[in-house]
């Protein structure tokens, strides 16, 4: 088992009282799955994804990632775990504007303390695979949305994570670009990477092996 959520709650306290984002969420993910989380706006999809990505903490409940109790371990260990096993892809790509394509892809490797020669070969491999060698010295603003998202995915997988979390990865793309990206995810999944995506689109959800429907912070069905 890759990860497991047990009775996870997430809430915010305000003057108006307690607002629940997630209520009693339980689910397991096996390695190699391709899961789509669906649900209307405000149903807690993104929060769930952030908790899975260890960028947010549940208010209550347990989260095990490769047998490790994420809800108990310390920040330092958590970020080690996260750094090693998880990659993130965003709707708005979130590339660093001041860095070139090459440098954007290279950045995670820097934080993994990898040597320069290793970095070079890894980045070169990925550029090659995504057919972006000719664009490696361009800045994000010089790329189309689809190309930017490609760089985003390249950046996410360069550290060879077990799990990719994608927050509406095609939300800002046209349908053709979106299809290409989803094909890429499918391919990655076939290579053994576990993928959890948040999406609004039934079509995109169909790429996955399992759909989780979220409504008002609860898993339905």
């Amino acid at each position, binding site marked *: 088992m890759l990860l497991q959520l047990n009775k996870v709650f997430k809430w915010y306290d305000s003057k108006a009282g307690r607002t629940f984002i997630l209520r009693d969420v339980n689910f397991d993910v096996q390695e190699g799955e391709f899961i789509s989380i669906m649900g209307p706006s405000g149903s807690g999809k*993104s929060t769930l994804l*952030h908790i899975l*990505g260890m*960028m*947010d903490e549940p208010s209550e409940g347990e989260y095990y990632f490769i047998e490790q109790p994420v809800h108990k371990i310390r920040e330092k260990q958590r*970020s080690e775990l*996260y*750094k090693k096993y998880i990659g*993130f892809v*965003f709707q*708005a790509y*979130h*590339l*660093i*504007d*001041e*860095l070139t394509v090459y*440098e954007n892809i*290279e*950045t*995670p490797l*820097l*934080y*993994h303390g990898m040597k320069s020669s290793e970095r070079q070969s890894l980045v070169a491999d990925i550029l090659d695979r995504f057919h972006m060698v000719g664009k490696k010295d361009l800045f994000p603003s010089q790329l189309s949305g689809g190309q930017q998202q490609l760089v985003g995915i390249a*950046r*996410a997988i360069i*550290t060879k994570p077990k799990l990719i979390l994608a927050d509406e990865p095609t939300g800002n793309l046209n349908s053709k670009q979106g299809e290409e990206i989803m094909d890429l995810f499918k391919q990655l999944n076939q290579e053994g990477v576990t993928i959890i995506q948040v999406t609004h689109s039934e079509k995109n959800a169909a790429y996955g092996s399992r759909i989780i429907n979220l409504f008002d912070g609860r898993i339905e069905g």
Partner: protein
Amino acid sequence: MLRNYFKIAFRNLQKNKAFSFINILGLSVGMACCMLILLYVQNEISYDKHHTRAEDMYRVGTTFVTTDQTKNMPYTPAPMAFTLKADFPEVEQATRVFVPFNEDKAIFKLAENGKVSKSFYESKGYMADSTFFDLFSYKFIEGVPHTALNEPNSVVVSEEIAQKLFGNQSALNKIVHIASSNGNIDFKITGVFRPDKLSTIDGRFFMSLSSGEMGAYVRSARNFAFNNMFYTFIRLQPGSNPQALEKKLTAFINKYAGADMKAAGFKKKQFLEAVSDLHLKSEDNGQMAGKGSISYVYLLTSIAIFTLLIACINFMNLSTARSGKRAAEVGIRKVVGAEKAMLISQFLGESLLLSILGLVIASVLVFLFLPVFNQLASTSIHIEVSQHVFTFLGFIALAIITGLIAGSYPAFYLASFQPIKVLKGKFTNTLAAVNLRRGLVIFQFSISIILILASLVVWKQMNYLKDQSLGFKQAQQVVIPLRTKTTKSSYEALKTEIQKNSQVVSAAAAGSYPGIFSARDQNFYTDGKTGAESVNVKLNDVDYNFIETLGFKVISGRPFSKNFAADTNSRIVLNEKAVAAFGYTPENVIGKRLHFDWNNEVFDYEIIGVVKDFHYEGLQQSIGRFGFLLDRNQNYNYMVVNVNTSSMESMLQFMETQWKKFNPEEPFEYTFMDQDFQRNYDTEQRMGTIVSYFTFIAIFISCLGLYGLATFTAEQRIKEIGIRKVLGASITNIVQLLSKDFLKLVLIALLIAGPIAWYAMNEWLQKFAYRIEIQWWMFAIAGCMALLIAFLTVSFQAVKAALINPVKSLKTE
């Protein structure tokens, strides 16, 4: 990793040209100020550190205690030095230095084939014992230091003088004629030195103390109580305790001078001052090099630090204000695995890069402005790679510290962003950051306002000093120094000739004149009292019509007159303060007598007149007791000519012609009394100028920062401005809206700065016995200036923002 950071940093600099410009310019100007001040401080503390075993060298000073005052002076009597050496084993070596009073220059004459071939004045001629160069280290380029002053009539000159005399030829063993009040003597040059290090003992030529009249006096001098006019320097055995020696000196002086002091009505105590502290810490260095001041060193250092701090604040403010733009990057980096520590080091690295760029520009600025600074501070600092290794290391350290200070807050602030928040675009400046930014702006403007107020007060005080009535006529008074025996003896004849000119009101001579240093004083007592109840009176030995020439106001009795033959003998004119000190009124003091005892003899003076109090020293000092005596020997040091002319130039030409008649071999030199008096305020004037320059720089950097912030705010509120305009706001409304916040900050700064500036400047004013009161309108002016400057800075951006067509600004959202 580093390369990645540098790339980002550089690209960010390029992308945000305005902000980079403000930051780098501010930082480099701030750093340049700090570097200049660092050089200045290093220059100031380097004085007299170079002598071999400088740490064991001391100057013996004297505290004079009379019934009503205690005064520290750097002088001692002639026999002191070598008696100390004989009596105390811990005194390893001693030497005396004599600096002629009221004689700023001596004349050098070079004779070839019996004719005078060269003749010029030289200043800073000191007389010193043969042991002088044993104590003090001078770099000799000719001659042997330890034996140079062994013989009478030997002189050691600076390289510059040697060159003036002999060009590039060797000066060693050549004969030069030096005429001064010490006599007209042929000196043998026994050494040439290169003054490459700073010293309080800033002589340009050193004559053997056993030469001339002074030599005769020194050889016979046995008295320890009087004639305190020699500097005594001693070197202690390594490891001796100067405090212990100092304690023993009370018994020492009482043993040798006790009886004389008792008779004359004063006591003396000796104290030791470390030679290396003389420049900055000594209260009084007498006639030697102009004193530095430790308080001015502190003042300049703090101004430099504040200037740099203001620049650092700009960096902090602009970085945090713009953090929204960097937030996304922080979020992404965190998501792809960056830890907080890595991000902190990245942002610190960026500010370091900026400060190092600043350092490069600052170095250029220092190089360009060093001459200007030298002129302002009247220093002669020049940068030499070999001498300033540590200074350069210091500069680099300064850049690193600057980078760390400026970068620390933004680094921690930026690195602590939560990725999910910033990536969702929910980023807002936290209230804490906004408040801190406001606080920092207030701090910046407080410093600027303090500096404005300081400049204002200094300026007012300087004007006050200039406008004060000194109690005599200082304008149109030409002072002609009478330096040598020849000129002194030609005085009467010269006076007669000069007075023939109808534009000359009158001419007279004296031992000294108001505004210059004078050491002459005497303790007097009145009838029915004893020497133990003496009162100290400063004296000036004058010619008949000196009192009239300078226009001192006689309020009782009469001035000296040729009609009273007895005036030449034992008659005195006092000022009001002196009369009061003796317990009389100006009316009843006439005809009373003053006495003093010397060598078991009683000397009498009859009081014949009283003059209104006048300023004989700078207005730092309050007026004390003063008296005039007629100089029996006509041994005057200065001739004063009161003229009434519209063409000073032709008047001076006339005087020079007359002078040449009697003194063909001596150059004619003159000064103006009013200018000489102003020289008492040189240090204050200089500091005032420096402070005002720094004020300008500090305000400039503050405004840069404010401009940056205003730009940012206007950018941030562009939508709000658009909506307001659609709703009918006028341009004035918008400018008001944008400026109000900043102006409020400046007002708060004024409230904070006011009391601090008032306190600091009041302290400064205490140095002057005569001073202005700090008034409320000065605060008003400083406040208005700060507000106006801030408003102009902010409104430029505000107007720009207000003029934007709302359709455009609303569309961008």
